[in-house]
């Protein structure tokens, strides 16, 4: 069974960010697979390059990177959500004259079309991080 995830939750203020990651990690150890994880809205904040979690907290960014590597899983940020929150990749940083990318690899920018394509490939789609 192929899963796609839509993550709308900022790790700094929503436990949904952790739920999404744990779900992905569990899929990775199961007979099922992930076709992609798409971060939209506040969800994109997990990819902030300079983010440093407090010592007593788990590093979600590093754990996503590991899932991505283990499963050759794309981690894509909605480009509109990312830009308004100051998350840019290297080409975009260069284009607008910033000193450096603020996006940590392997996260990358993508359009909604990417997510909609993943949705077509997946057997199940789960939403994590809705507002109350």
């Amino acid at each position: 069974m192929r899963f796609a995830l839509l993550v709308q939750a900022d790790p700094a203020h929503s436990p949904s960010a952790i739920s999404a990651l744990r779900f992905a990690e569990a899929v990775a150890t199961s007979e099922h697979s992930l076709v992609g994880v798409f971060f939209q809205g506040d969800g994109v904040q997990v990819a902030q390059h300079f983010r440093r979690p407090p010592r007593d907290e788990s590093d979600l960014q590093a754990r996503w990177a590991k899932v991505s590597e283990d499963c050759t899983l794309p981690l894509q940020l909605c480009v509109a959500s990312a830009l308004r929150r100051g998350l840019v990749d290297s080409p975009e940083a260069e284009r607008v004259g910033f000193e450096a990318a603020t996006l940590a690899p392997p996260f990358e920018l993508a359009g909604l079309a990417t997510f909609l394509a993943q949705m077509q490939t997946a057997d199940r789609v789960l939403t994590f991080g809705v507002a109350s």
Partner: protein
Amino acid sequence: MKSVLIISQSTPYGRSSAAEALDTAMAAAALDVPVTLLFDGDGVLQLLPEQAGSELGVRNLSQVLEALPAFEVERCFVATPALAQRSLSPDTLALPGPLLDAEAVAALLRSADVVLTY
């Protein structure tokens, strides 16, 4: 093609979710993904007429809502139970599509391959 139901259940300016629901619906329609947009819960507050987001320097959602048909998001519905619970009368709202009662919402949900909550 898998069909997608987008449930828009956030207040218009409470979070960016309301705008993101519309963005996703328009992108789906542009790619010919069968998409249905349901306004339910606090999402029905997006339908109050005469909103002026510009007062706050934010995007005016009412204008985006009016543009939905132009972006070929043609299947839009509004959940009646959410109106009743908020003491809203349908004839005071800018309705983007037909009203659905609880039974019809349940059927709509079960006719979709994918359901996204915003």
